[in-house]
């Protein structure tokens, strides 16, 4: 990789790379994103390597591992270009057939292409599949076709074009104006107007300023930022260079959570490549502007996603948030003005510069511009990452893109915003998703986790789960959060164990009022959302747990009873082997019995029984 000393040099090189990377050359792209990796994409890629070599095609066909190809539920995904055929559920055994049928004979392997669950129509191309054609990818656009460790490919796709514009055609002020006019709001969850944050920092006193990328994606159920950091790391770097120029920062940090080692690796590789090319370091493209980036790793603390806690973590302290004001834009890292934005926010910046603020502002709703990446997970057929314009309705996301609920089960709720968010019931399915509308119904946008729930989820259990999570992650600094969560956790345990009282509900509401108004940071303040939203929309479930000591969804263990149906039990002993407390006994090949005194209601027998003989009530 040459070191680019001028924009012309870069433009020339980009032309050469584009010519070299012949778009008509056959390519096999094996998805190595967060969904496909645990399903064995590395083994599939290895199998392709062997199969292609065997057929003498390894020089002709380019084999690559790509970033997330989106529809994770049907992974391992493989994309064949230039035909844009997308194969799903590919295993090592399928590979020789794909090579023979598609790469040699140019035909399609019918059993590996998408089939619509409702119409049963088959589609081999992305453009025909509802999950893909209903999206508007900006941030995710390059993920499925890019080798994330190749700067050449990133350049060929227009990477780092924004640098020419910002350094030589715009003043830093104008860059701030552009981001402000675009209407971009922070994608980490709070949705604060990005341009305004940059302006505050730009105008703050002092010559030394910092840029931080918050890659601490801690919301369970969210993996959008992981996919971007792993699949398109240069987009984050490019966005940060623009931001640094806009506010006058010389040093940036990307803070990645500890649980994402691959993201750390890819970012470090990308930073080295950018340095080599002269996009980071001194006098970038002879603009006179210096900027470099360091990667800092989290150490396993959800609260470090909070901006002041994150900053304290970089400084070598425990992740306790600080009171605000002052906000980081005025007093942040080492007490100096700092802009801290989320991964997805940064990844949007290059396109805003390239295509213009007006282009971006034309997408979305009046107060929420642009697109949002969601991780659509839970009880939905097409789990995976989707990017849609703000204002798309929940119904469209869950049904048109998501393909609806598996086994035709009834929709119960969609949970957005992670542990700081709320549960939204069926009556709001036509809600256009944007920052304000979600807040109005008692939830938040959050980082983009969207968890669909059907009638097998207990809403009391869901709230209990989030309170348990937040209680474990609370830093402990302020009383309302630390003690409030402890008491809420205790109350939920009482309710889900059959010892709940109606007074508990009033007490929870009181606690929530205190926590919302007096906690230092968002963790404590928005911990009330899962509690209040479920109390509002699913009060009947709480009452069933309290008054009838029953869990209607059959989830809360202490309120369940497991028995074995003697008619259907074959005596295979699978449950006996699985039971952690030896509560099941009987003669081999005859019906088994569960001792209710010993049973801890873990449900493992229910999970392993192949004959549907274990009954749960």
């Amino acid at each position: 990789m040459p070191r680019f000393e001028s924009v012309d040099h870069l433009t020339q090189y980009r032309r050469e790379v584009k010519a070299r990377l012949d778009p008509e050359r056959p390519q096999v792209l094996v998805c190595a994103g967060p969904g496909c990796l645990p399903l064995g994409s590395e083994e599939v890629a290895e199998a392709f390597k062997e199969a292609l070599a065997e057929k003498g095609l390894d020089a002709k066909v380019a084999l690559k591992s790509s970033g997330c190809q989106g529809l994770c539920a049907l992974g391992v995904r493989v994309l064949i270009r230039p035909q844009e055929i997308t194969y799903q559920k590919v295993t090592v055994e399928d590979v020789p057939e794909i090579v023979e049928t598609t790469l040699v004979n140019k035909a399609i392997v019918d059993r590996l292409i998408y089939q619509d669950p409702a119409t049963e129509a088959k589609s081999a191309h992305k453009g025909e599949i509802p999950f893909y054609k209903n999206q508007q990818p900006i941030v995710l656009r390059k993920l499925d076709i890019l080798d994330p460790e190749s700067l050449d490919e990133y350049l060929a796709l227009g990477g780092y074009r924004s640098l020419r514009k910002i350094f030589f055609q715009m003043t830093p002020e104008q860059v701030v104006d552009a981001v402000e006019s675009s209407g971009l709001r922070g994608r980490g969850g709070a949705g604060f107007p990005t341009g305004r944050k940059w302006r505050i920092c730009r105008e703050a006193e002092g010559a030394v300023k910092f840029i931080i990328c918050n890659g601490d994606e801690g919301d369970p159920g969210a993996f959008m930022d992981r996919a971007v950091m792993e699949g398109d790391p240069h987009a984050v770097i490019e966005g940060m260079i623009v931001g640094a120029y806009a506010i006058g920062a010389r040093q940036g940090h990307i803070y990645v959570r500890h649980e994402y080692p691959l993201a750390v690796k890819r970012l470090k590789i990308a930073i080295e490549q950018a340095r080599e090319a002269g996009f980071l370091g001194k006098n970038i493209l002879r603009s006179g502007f210096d900027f470099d980036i360091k990667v800092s790793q989290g150490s396993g603390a959800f609260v470090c996603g909070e901006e002041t806690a994150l900053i304290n973590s970089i400084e070598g302290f425990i992740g306790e948030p600080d009171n605000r004001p002052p906000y980081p834009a005025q007093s942040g890292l080492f007490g100096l003005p700092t802009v801290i934005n989320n991964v997805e926010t940064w990844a949007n910046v290059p396109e805003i510069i390239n295509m213009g603020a007006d282009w971006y502002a034309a997408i979305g709703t009046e107060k929420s511009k642009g697109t949002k990446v969601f991780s659509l997970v839970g009880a939905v057929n097409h789990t995976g990452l989707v990017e849609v314009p703000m204002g798309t309705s929940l119904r469209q996301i869950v049904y048109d893109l998501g393909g609806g609920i598996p086994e035709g089960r009834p929709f119960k709720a969609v949970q957005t915003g992670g542990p700081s968010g709320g549960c939204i019931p069926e009556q709001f399915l036509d809600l256009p998703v944007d920052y304000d509308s979600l807040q109005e119904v008692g939830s938040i946008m959050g980082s983009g986790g969207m968890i669909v729930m059907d009638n097998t989820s207990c809403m009391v259990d869901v709230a209990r789960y989030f309170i348990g999570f937040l209680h474990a992650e609370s830093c402990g600094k302020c009383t309302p959060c630390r003690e409030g969560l402890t008491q809420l956790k205790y109350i939920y345990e009482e309710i889900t164990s059959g010892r709940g009282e109606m007074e508990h509900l009033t007490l929870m509401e009181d606690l929530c009022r205190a926590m919302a108004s007096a906690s230092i940071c968002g963790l404590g303040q928005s911990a009330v959302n899962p509690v209040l939203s479920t109390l509002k929309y699913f009060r009947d479930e709480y009452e069933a747990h309290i008054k009838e000591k029953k869990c209607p969804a059959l989830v809360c263990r202490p309120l369940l009873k497991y028995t074995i149906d003697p008619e259907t039990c074959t005596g295979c002993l699978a449950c006996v082997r699985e039971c952690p407390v030896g509560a099941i006994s009987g003669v081999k090949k005859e019906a088994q019995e569960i001792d209710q005194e010993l049973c801890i209601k873990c449900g493992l027998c229910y999970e392993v029984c192949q004959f549907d003989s274990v009954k749960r009530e």
Partner: protein
Amino acid sequence: MDQARLDSILSRYGGEPYDLIPVLQDIQDGYGFLPKEELKVVAKSLQVPVTQVYSVATFYKMFSLVPKGRNQLKVCLGTTCHLKGGNRLVDSLESRLGVEVGYTSKDGEFSLETVGCLGSCAQAPVMMINDKYYARVTADKVPKILKMYQ
């Protein structure tokens, strides 16, 4: 205490107080835990009070003051994994390995932890053993997976 080994870690950084967490991360990754003697040297070397080192070492989940097992199991209990039976997976592992969450087996072979979210939500329930991810791990799949490490 292996001074040379610790020095090679410290030399990667600038010796500033804000290098504390990266230094501790390298020690945790290299040694499998944070030994007391090493922590005292780190405190002196970075000009950070021992109390701060201790506070950081006990605040963050990745750090352990006692050695972890040769194989580290991390079961995801993120929202989706919770809804898809992550707790049953934990029960099954605790029972089969004879170790409770947060602890290490007596022979030092396995330590078991739960984590908030591993970021592979589409494939719930998920667990990691060392660097490898396992997807859609229902209780029936556990014996086969564990056998590879036993």
